[in-house]
């Protein structure tokens, strides 16, 4: 009996604390809290609009939005991956934004109908052990399929969003046959053992356990920040005259169509594409702001210094299933 009373008491407590008031925006966020909170705080300070973060994986949250449809309580969706954003657009989950409020962001980094906008970009790069001569000459991601890297290669599992997005870029920039061969070669090289996190790949390369890995650029700088003398270096792949360039992916945001707070949600997006919002959003994670003229953190390779693959970010959604089909047909772990 006492227990029943106690739980009732606790329940009432919960209804008291978790109820969401009218002037709050709810964001389904697929990006780490740590990188979203600073910019959210600044937004609240500027506009007085409070924000509740509901954090999870980008894909799971998109699935949730789809299942909830008009019953969703979300006002905004933030994803770490353009593929999910475009998928959400295709599913008609988002509202289109005015061209004028997002025209500071280049067209390749937002949806054709402006139903989502890319906010920060990450580069898909190679991390190599700087003491290991055997991998010093590698200049292309496609060389990762070379049999001489057997046992030396570190990649993530194939359901990682960045991995899938990168593969889509390579698929669009080359062709299916080449990508398939590449995956088959990498599969042999890793021999069933893949990593669950990019940070573990960087660590494995730094310790010499592996010689080379395929990661997003900021994981390298995050590691170097903790251990400035780590024996790793970044290689920006595929920079030759006829090469495809570095694969990019963007994190971005969208206004949920069924949200009843369209105006406040649009205000949030407008803040995110403003110079101040851009700087904050990208800098906390050492990414590239998508707005031209806003510079990235000083320690990452400047954008002007390398070639980026010429694939619009919306393709990451359009060709996502095609990529998954190839990955599955190869049976990547």
């Amino acid at each position, binding site marked *: 009996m006492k*227990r*029943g009373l*106690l*739980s009732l008491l*606790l*329940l009432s*407590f*919960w209804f008291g*604390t*978790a109820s*969401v008031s009218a002037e709050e925006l*709810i964001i389904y966020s697929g990006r*780490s*809290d*740590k990188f979203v909170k600073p910019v959210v705080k600044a937004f609240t300070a500027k506009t007085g609009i409070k924000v*509740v*973060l*509901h*954090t*999870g*994986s980008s*894909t*799971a949250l998109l*699935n*949730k939005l*789809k*299942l*909830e449809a008009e*019953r969703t*309580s*979300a006002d905004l969706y933030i994803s770490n991956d353009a593929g999910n954003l475009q998928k959400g657009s295709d599913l008609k989950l988002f509202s289109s934004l005015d061209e004028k409020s997002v025209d500071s962001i280049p067209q390749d980094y937002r949806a054709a109908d402006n139903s989502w906008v890319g906010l920060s970009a990450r580069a898909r790069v190679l991390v190599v052990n700087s003491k290991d001569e055997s991998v010093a000459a590698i200049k292309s991601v496609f060389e990762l399929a070379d049999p001489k890297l057997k046992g030396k290669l570190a990649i993530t*599992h194939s*359901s990682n969003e960045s991995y*899938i997005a990168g593969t889509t870029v390579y698929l669009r920039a080359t062709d299916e046959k080449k990508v398939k061969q590449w995956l088959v070669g990498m599969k042999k090289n890793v021999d*069933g*053992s*893949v*990593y*669950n*996190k990019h*940070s*573990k790949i960087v*660590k*494995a390369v730094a*310790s*010499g*356990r592996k010689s080379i890995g395929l990661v997003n650029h900021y994981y390298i700088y995050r590691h170097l920040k903790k251990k400035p003398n780590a024996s790793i270096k970044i290689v920006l792949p595929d920079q030759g005259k006829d090469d495809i360039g570095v694969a990019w992916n963007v994190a971005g945001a969208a206004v949920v169509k069924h949200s009843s707070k369209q105006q406040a949600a649009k205000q949030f997006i407008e803040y995110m594409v403003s110079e101040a919002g851009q700087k904050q959003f990208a800098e906390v994670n050492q990414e590239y702001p998508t707005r031209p003229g806003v510079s990235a953190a000083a320690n990452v390779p400047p954008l002007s210094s390398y070639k980026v693959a010429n694939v619009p970010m919306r393709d990451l959604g359009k060709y996502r*299933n095609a990529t*998954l089909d190839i990955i*599955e047909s190869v049976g990547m*772990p």
Partner: protein
Amino acid sequence: MFAQLVRFDWNTRSVLATLVVLLASVPLIYVVINSGQLSFPQWTNLWSARLPELLTNTLTLALLVALGSFVLGVSSAWLITRRDFVGRRLAVWLMILPLTIPTYVFAHIYTTLTEDDGWLGAIWIGLFGPDNHPPELYNVFGAAFILSLAGFSYVFLLVSDALSRSRVDIEEAAQLHGLSPRQVFWRISLPMLRPAIAAGLALVVLHVVSDFGAVSMLRFQTFTLSIYLQMEGRHNLEAAAGLSLVLVLLSLSFLILERFFRDRQRYYSAAQAQKPKRRRATRMELIFIWFWLGGITLFAFALPLAWMLAWTYEAWLQSLITEEFWGYVQNSLIVSVAAASLATVAAFPVALFHARLRNRISQGYLHLASIGFVLPGPVIALGILSFVLSMLPWIYGTMIVLLLAMLIRFLPLAVQAQEASVQQLSPSIEEAGRSLGARPWENLTRIVIPVLRTGLVSAWVLVFIDTLKELPATLLLRPTGFDTLPVRIWIEASEEMLELAAPASLMLMIGTLPVIWFLMRQHDAASK
């Protein structure tokens, strides 16, 4: 069968039991409907492309974990129940405490410890030189290692319970007839323990098969992980349901196997004449016992605890333990207390129904109530989500949905825990009460509940512990912005924020301690 149906009488008890079982079957119905949408070619494709590998992986892992838990659980149970030694009471605790650490925390900690700069990695390199890297855990052995450490306590609990109630006279008789102690163990004690070992291993295997946390951290492709990836990556709910259906059949065969062993238990545990005596350990034995139990404790509890403390201290130094953190603690407690109370109440009619009827229908009810153990958490969550959105949309987004999922997931634990004590509640006791003039309410509070106390308490505690650690269903079904400790651990660990994941893990453990203490006290009182 038909005759039984006719005799089925619709009193309150059976109506309630039927309602609970219907609710528990929601995810199964969802799985059957969704997998029914797979076309024949899709099935054959699934069958040929995925199943052989998934079956091999899942069964290999289950076998290895069963083996690991058997060795750890049976050996420790035997040493603790048959020898008296310094620190025996402490040892009992040490063998149970690993239950307070969720599998995903184990996996996270051990992958960190075995990196080159982790504690274990550094020792390894110190021993074998910088060119020998410590073994990686991203394979079947790593997963088996983690899940054995996280699960052997179930075997320990059930086997030590059986050992402390076993027939010592038979063992003594065997000894008198000239069997050596070792022969007595292998030929008398072990066969008598078979039902307890089977029950413990079944529990472990079911946890392995439906485990999501460890295999997703270690990226070992089992059924559950693959189902999750189908749902997540491709939003292919039909394929996920198809795989789930196969998994259900697989787990069901484990359950039936376990029932088969357990039903023979009645034959073995006759009224006992004599309580087993614990022989005082010799000095050599004492050294061996503590070497062995200490070794188990080191890996299953001490190292993870030390890791949590070290990083929590770090978080404290950086003042990262904020007000929000205590909010997560509060959320976790609310869900766990509510789910445990709900499941304990809901399990009662089902257990009673079976205890009174003991026929095929009640047996079927019991199996249906076990769905939560058989289906992976993400699938249960999705089943509930679809059910609520189509049938009860007005409760969507509230905590009721989350509690429903917890209820279904952990109902089997509550039913199992209550089954034994419900059996003691023979109708004649109730009738005696009634004939002496007790009203229904009085009957309930003065007769029924006291008899059921042990069962109710263990049911509550077991569900509380598992809800506190629950991850996949909470991730999907929690109300907006309602983060629990496991959700936070998952979020922080996926971004490598060790100093943020550690305090939450530590709090989970601390939260479990009082209820375990309560369970142990209850247990001691019952065995005295």
